[in-house]
């Protein structure tokens, strides 16, 4: 479509001269606006199907932080110490988050209020990601336009970027996460960088640094830029393409960008202390040396001296590198972070940091995922990269490096598909625009005229309208005939129409696929589940919010809730209650403590819960509904993480049967059946079924006839479909008995008298 609009060769007022250029500009603007609208619209499935709601887990924290920001103002937010998470430790939230997202929505909120548009902060947060994806489409238009001379490449890249599922997966309405704005910043920073390298201007370099600073404030993935730009510079130097342009843009970016990034408390002195950032520093040093050497070489005539100089540069560089390694080994510079190691060795996390490995988005990518997320772009991508090799200018080098690195990372971790998507869109757009520009020329090229239409440009003569440029190209082609690539012109209308038809069909299929993937895979809020009733109507399963709202309304405002860390942010955001652990996962020991409490016997767990002042315990249980993302399925991770800290007390082996199976039925191991998690999950579940018929619909197994008994906890609330179960931790027994004795006594008593025994005697603290 984009190509077709620029293709119009109608002579007339609108398409000639100055007005013609304006018309094309206007059309381009309209197309870009339409693309942005399409990008936004395709992300609204969940809002239309469900409601304007924050999705999943992390966004709930961001939302809560944003509410804190707009409620208390910027400085209290900056200094926010949150005592409602990680009880009893608390979290220095202001210093351990990337504030870019919250500040952005806070600013938008303030701005709209200033314009007397009182929009709810929740709606701003929900629609933040779609709005920024519109901007991302625009940014990728700019970026691609720098890469390719074809006017259609940018527009194609924009629409690809707008609807590619790989990006939509992280930016549907409601997915209020750092990536929502970070991908826009990523692409835009790259655009500014390319612009800076091309122009060699301090202004563009400074702008790059500015947006880089914004990016640092928004997402931890900024390290990708921090390493990619130096790598680009390094490769250019190695290719012997050092130029003052590169020097100016790189030094400007590095100096200003590093300063900007250090303003974020969470980043602080990392840029000069951590290994992740050392590449940028090293290249900064190298570029000074090379710059100096270049300068000296220009002054020095002697050939020997130049050789000496080059040797000196190498020696200095090697020395600096050795020094760096020394500092790292001695510990002055922080070694690579665990997440970084897991990028190189996919097995690393599984062995050393189970907490990282337990997150599904940190798993290595399965091959079909590439096709699923990118569809036809994935096979256009190599073609586009090849196109970059054909005219290997500075900016094309960048795309090549970006493509290689991002492809690797995307293969290692599912979530890094996100960084790959932009470059795939750009490369695919370059390849496709090449095809379209070649095949969509309506007029048959004649032999003589062929020279006037250089392939590299591909702009149809009529569309350009400016005779000067055409003439120039013709002259150029004549003058440099030997250096030009062979010219291609398509004569047959048949092949033209066939190729055009095929491409159109592919594009339509692509749109279809994107819409389908977005609608089916990426538009579920996961807080609210949808199911179909037999009559086809939609039924909403809202157990999470039911239970969270119950907690919010009917428990003491500072009642501590213990749950597995996945639900920490949601409890904080929706139930507004203090939690023990949450998705921030900054303290592995604390998480392991919760894991131990969940995986041990009641006698072991109860003291742990008392020590942490736990009032309620929340578990997710999907057996009734067949909801597979429940805590029993996550249970092994709890065991593993607990085992990492207490290898003597918690052993993963004990939870498997002798045949190595993970079972919940009659054959489950005693350790499994006595664990708190098992008991809490299946407590009273048997009562729902006729005797001995209790069925676990997730694990597909029949449960033991006798359900588990709880003595230190009591059921406080269970949601409608049993997905969330909340237990209250009992206070110490009034008579100083152990809870087990008390429960046994009550039962015996009940059988005899049908009434509770008299309570007498002073409260005695039981010493465990």
């Amino acid at each position: 479509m984009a190509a077709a609009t620029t293709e119009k060769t109608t002579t007339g007022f609108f398409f000639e001269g100055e007005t013609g250029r304006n018309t094309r500009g206007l059309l381009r603007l309209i197309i870009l606006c339409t693309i942005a609208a399409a990008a936004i619209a395709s992300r609204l499935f969940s809002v239309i199907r469900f409601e304007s709601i924050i999705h999943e887990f992390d966004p709930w924290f961001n939302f809560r932080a944003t509410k804190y920001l707009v409620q208390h103002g910027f400085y209290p937010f900056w200094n926010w110490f949150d005592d409602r998470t990680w009880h009893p430790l608390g979290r220095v939230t202001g210093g351990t988050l990337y504030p870019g997202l919250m500040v952005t929505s806070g600013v938008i909120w303030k701005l709209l209020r200033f314009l007397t548009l009182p929009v709810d902060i929740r709606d701003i947060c929900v629609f933040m990601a779609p709005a920024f994806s519109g901007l991302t489409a625009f940014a990728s238009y700019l970026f691609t336009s720098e890469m390719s001379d074809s006017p259609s490449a940018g527009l194609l890249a924009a629409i690809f970027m707008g609807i590619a599922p790989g990006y939509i997966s992280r930016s549907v309405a409601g997915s209020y996460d750092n990536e929502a704005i970070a991908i826009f910043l990523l692409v835009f920073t790259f655009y500014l960088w390319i612009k800076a390298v091309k122009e060699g201007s301090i202004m563009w370099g400074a702008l790059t640094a500015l947006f880089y600073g914004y990016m640092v404030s928004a997402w931890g993935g900024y390290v990708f830029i921090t390493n990619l730009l130096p790598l680009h510079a390094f490769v250019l130097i190695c290719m012997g393409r050092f130029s003052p342009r590169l020097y100016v843009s790189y030094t400007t970016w590095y100096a200003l960008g590093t300063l900007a990034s250090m303003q974020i408390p969470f980043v602080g002195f990392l840029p000069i202390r951590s290994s992740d950032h050392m590449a940028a520093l090293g290249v900064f040093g190298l570029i000074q040396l090379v710059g100096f050497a270049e300068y000296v070489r220009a002054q020095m005539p002697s050939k020997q001296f130049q050789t000496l100089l080059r040797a000196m540069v190498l020696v200095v560089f090697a020395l600096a590198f050795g020094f760096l390694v020394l500092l790292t080994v001695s510990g002055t510079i922080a070694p690579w972070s665990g997440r970084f190691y897991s990028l190189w060795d996919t097995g690393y996390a599984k062995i050393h940091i189970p907490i990282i490995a337990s997150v599904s988005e940190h798993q290595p990518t399965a091959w079909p995922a590439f096709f699923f997320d990118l569809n036809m772009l994935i096979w256009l991508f190599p073609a586009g990269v090849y196109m970059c090799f054909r005219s290997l200018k500075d900016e094309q080098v960048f795309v090549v490096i970006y493509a290689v690195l991002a492809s690797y990372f995307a293969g290692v971790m599912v979530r890094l598909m996100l960084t790959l998507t932009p470059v795939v869109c750009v490369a695919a757009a370059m390849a496709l625009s090449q095809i379209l520009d070649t095949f969509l020329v309506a007029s048959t090229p004649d032999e003589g005229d062929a020279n006037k239409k250089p392939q590299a440009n591909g702009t149809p003569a009529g569309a350009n309208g400016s005779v000067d440029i055409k003439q120039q190209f013709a002259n150029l082609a004549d003058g440099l005939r030997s250096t030009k690539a062979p010219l291609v012109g398509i004569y047959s209308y048949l092949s033209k129409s066939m190729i055009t038809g095929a491409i159109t069909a592919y594009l339509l299929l692509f749109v279809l696929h994107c819409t389908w993937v977005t609608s089916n895979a990426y538009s579920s809020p996961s807080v609210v589940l949808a199911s179909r009733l037999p009559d086809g109507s939609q039924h909403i399963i809202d157990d999470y919010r039911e239970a969270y709202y119950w907690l919010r309304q009917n428990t003491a405002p500072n009642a501590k809730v213990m749950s597995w860390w996945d639900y920490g942010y949601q409890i904080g955001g929706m139930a507004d209650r203090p939690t023990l652990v949450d998705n921030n996962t900054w303290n592995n020991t604390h998480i392991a403590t919760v894991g131990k409490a969940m995986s041990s016997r009641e006698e072991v767990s109860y003291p742990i819960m008392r020590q942490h002042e736990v009032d309620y315990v929340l578990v997710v249980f999907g057996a009734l509904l067949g909801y597979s993302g429940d805590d029993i399925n996550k249970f092994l991770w709890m065991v593993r993480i607990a085992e990492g800290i207490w290898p003597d007390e918690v052993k993963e082996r004990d939870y498997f049967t002798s045949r190595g199976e993970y079972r919940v039925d009659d054959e489950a191991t005693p350790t499994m059946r006595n664990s708190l998690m098992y008991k809490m999950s299946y407590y009273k579940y048997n009562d729902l079924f006729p005797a001995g018929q209790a069925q676990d619909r997730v694990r597909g197994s029949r449960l033991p006839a006798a359900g588990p008994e709880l003595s230190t906890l009591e059921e406080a609330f269970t949601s409608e479909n049993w997905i969330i179960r909340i237990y209250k931790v009992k206070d110490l027994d009034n008579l100083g008995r152990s809870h087990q004795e008390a429960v046994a006594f009550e039962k015996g008593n009940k059988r005899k008298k049908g009434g509770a025994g008299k309570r007498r005697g002073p409260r005695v603290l039981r010493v465990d």
Partner: protein
Amino acid sequence: MSASPLLDLWEASASQPFQPTIGKNTQFTVGFVLLFTALVFSGLFGLNNSLKNVAIYGLPASLAFGFGAVYMICAVGVYV
């Protein structure tokens, strides 16, 4: 209940219910037409921006956009 003068006033005005020019059912049409006009006019203005065109295209476009936006906002259910 005691009769109050306001209630009398209400009864007296029975024949004159509030009836705006643009009803709820036409809000979307009006809003859309005005916004589209605004788009076309600002496009035309963008093609040839001269002082004369401010009066011919610019002003109507601004007005159409303003009112169109109000009606469109109303039409989607946010009653301002």
